């Protein structure tokens, strides 16, 4: 299993039957490949669609029907279209049950930075700030360390924030960490790692449960 599959499989188990879910672009979309049997989810695309399906076959694309990354979509029975104000009324208004977003940095307070690196990369926040503010469950999925090996789970974010105290769960290929008022609790570790490795690759202070973290199941 590669890193994405590990995160996808474990992350998909965080959903409960019947949830309305919005997945960010990139790694978060991988979760949709591994939804457990018996869990029926409704997906939202913030550009104005609910209940969409996979990309249509070649020749069946509708130029007016895409996801938030401009890739063609199909729709499932029960689908609905709406304008951007309505789409964000759903998001900001607390009607979206869960969102999964990527990470540049995440920290001990559940702060998330994922939309810009000043002077280097400024794509903009798109819908991310509204999603972390409005969704009931905010899951941050990430490689545990960046390409240079620096921890992405920090004591305090150094980059501009996407949201203050918004993240509920941090999921990487090594660990599942829950954000609590007491701090970050190391709830689960991957079968191929150790508490010591996770702690050494995490800048934030981790609270280790008395009976140790569970071993992650895929």
């Amino acid at each position, binding site marked *: 299993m590669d890193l994405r599959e590990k995160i996808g499989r474990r992350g998909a188990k965080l959903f409960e039957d019947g949830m309305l879910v919005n997945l960010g672009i990139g790694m978060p979309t991988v979760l949709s490949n591994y939804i457990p049997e018996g869990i029926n989810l409704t997906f939202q695309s913030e550009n104005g669609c609910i209940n969409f399906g996979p990309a249509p076959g070649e020749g069946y694309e509708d130029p*007016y029907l*895409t996801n938030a990354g*401009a890739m063609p979509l199909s*729709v499932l029975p029960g689908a609905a279209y709406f304008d951007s*104000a309505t789409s964000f009324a759903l998001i900001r208004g607390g009607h979206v049950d869960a969102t999964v977003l990527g990470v540049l940095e995440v920290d001990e307070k559940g702060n998330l930075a994922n939309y810009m690196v000043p002077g280097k990369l400024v794509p903009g926040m798109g819908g991310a*700030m509204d999603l972390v*503010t409005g969704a009931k469950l905010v899951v941050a999925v990430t490689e545990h360390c960046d390409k240079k090996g620096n921890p992405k789970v920090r004591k305090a974010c150094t980059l501009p924030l996407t*949201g203050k105290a918004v993240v509920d769960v941090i999921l990487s290929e090594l660990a599942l960490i829950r954000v609590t008022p007491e701090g970050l609790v190391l709830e689960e570790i991957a079968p191929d790692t150790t508490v010591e490795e996770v702690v050494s690759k995490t800048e934030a202070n981790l609270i280790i449960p008395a009976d140790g973290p569970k071993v992650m199941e895929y």
Partner: protein
Amino acid sequence: MARVITSDEAAALINDGDTIMVGGFLGIGSPGTVIDAMVKRGVKDLTLVCNDTAFPDKMTGKMIMNKQFKKIIVSHIGTNKETGRQMTAGELDVELNPQGTLAERIRCGGIGLGGFYTPTGVGTPVEEGKEVRVLEGREMLFETPLTAKVSYLKAAKGDKFGNLRYHATGMNFNPVMAFAGETVVAEVDELVDFMDPDDVHTPGVLVDYIVRRGR
């Protein structure tokens, strides 16, 4: 009745320095024929209110390549590298808004409200310079309305009364922008005499001009 005009006439409604709104999300649901006419006319120093700047070869992205904006109010610029380059070079003022905040600012501008408080953006760079108030037990930012001299929309279908019907995710920002422009131009794929009232998404009383795609 909405007047049917050409894309060149639609582009001539604005002059250097004006503020425009353009519907669309990464170019989907944007008025492509009118945008091409605006590129041809070459008006400069515009302020753009739009979700994004699409791609370099698409929709508002073409106007970015043609350096027609002095300021853009958007939620995302990551799909058009030239936008980022102009921003970094100090040639373009980019005001990034959370997408829901952008939609709601446009909505407020068009429906006679003086702004709104939102929890989105608290504790982020978006908060800078804004009033913060605790409402419903939560910190919230005050956001102001947005309006424009002309809103340029795209609909799948329009009728001679200006009624519009969008298709799929091509709807996006178009319905709120229909309220927020002093003048409203809608480019349509199909123009009919009249529509079933049940099919109307944007009532025609808001729409001043119709342009047929490709004309």
